[in-house]
């Protein structure tokens, strides 16, 4: 190996843990809001088993979409290719692609959950209702993911923080919380 040996630098486990653990604690406290929402919806989940099946995807997917957009935006900022001009058509292509991905995935989620419901639970929720719940909450989360990704990438770039290090984990976890709250809220309104 041609790499200078002897110094582990940032690969020392104490350094990695020391840098990451405080952030992990902060993120856990943020996502606790999603957990409290889920616990408060226990009755809803017991009555409509299929909603529980949708929960992990609802929580993760907004964060996934936010992560895809944030890392693309941060790369563009690093390369100096954008000034956040609303007339920048490539930025709009990014936003539209995220919304199209969301529409595809949340439609698939409704169909997937419906099929699982038919096989496992004899599901009491119809396909149209599931599609409505999945798309309304999913698209709302996607819009929030887009707004948060732009805002935080821009702010962290202005403040001179590398968005890859801290901003993206914070954005994805915050969007996770919105995913849970919106999903439970929309399900509640539709089913009661």
């Amino acid at each position: 190996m041609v790499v200078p040996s002897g110094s582990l630098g940032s690969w020392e486990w104490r350094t990695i843990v020391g840098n990451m653990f405080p952030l992990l604690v902060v993120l856990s406290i943020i996502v606790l809001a999603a957990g409290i929402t889920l616990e408060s919806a226990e009755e809803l989940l017991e009555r409509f088993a299929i909603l529980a099946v949708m929960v992990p995807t609802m929580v993760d997917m907004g964060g996934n979409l936010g992560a895809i957009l944030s890392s693309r935006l941060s790369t563009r900022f690093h390369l100096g290719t954008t000034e956040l001009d609303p007339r920048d058509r490539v930025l709009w292509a990014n936003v539209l692609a995220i919304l199209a991905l969301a529409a595809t995935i949340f439609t698939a989620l409704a169909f997937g959950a419906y099929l699982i419901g038919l096989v496992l639970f004899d599901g009491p929720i119809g396909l149209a209702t599931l599609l409505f719940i999945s798309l309304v909450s999913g698209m709302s989360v996607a819009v929030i993911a887009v707004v948060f990704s732009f805002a935080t990438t821009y702010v962290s770039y202005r403040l001179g923080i590398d968005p890859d290090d801290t901003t993206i984990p914070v954005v994805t976890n915050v969007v996770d919380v919105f995913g849970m709250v919106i999903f439970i809220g929309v399900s509640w309104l539709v089913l009661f």
Partner: protein
Amino acid sequence: MSVRQEFWSIYREAIPILFIALGGGLFAGVVLEGMVESVERFPGLLVMVPVFLATRGNVYGALGGRISSGLHQGLLPPAFERNDRLVNAVIASFINGIGISIVIGVVTWLALLVLGWPAAALYELVGIMLIAGVLTSVVLIFGLLLLIFAGYKRGYDPDNLVGPIVTTLGDIFGMVFMLLAIGIVEVIV
């Protein structure tokens, strides 16, 4: 690149990955549904679920990102061998992954206390998180390294592999091991 080309290139690149994540998410959801009935025995269980799943992504996503940068920079060979950097990165992930699991149990218990909601005993919540955290760490760390190394040797960019691997494995094994941990704590306590 025109707007239409840019749009389709982003869409095509991301959609297979998101479908893999959807599959993992639905499986995890079926396991979660089986867990709902244990909530009466251990109130607070559902509070921990999203936090536990999110942390899996945070800890092992960071490990994956680090390993893939290491491979790109030639700091690491793509193999399981006694390499100081690899050993340190793995130790750090174990400590972060297991440590934060214990924190989740404690913070959940405190939150329930503040809200005045029913809560399982502190040692029950921490016990469930500790068992689930240890099991998930082992499977995710070694599974992630195995898949990244194998993919890298076959010419895939590890940067594109880390996200979907972590989300999918994290959801599936996180929920399965949490259900298992609930069973174990139920028997012991």
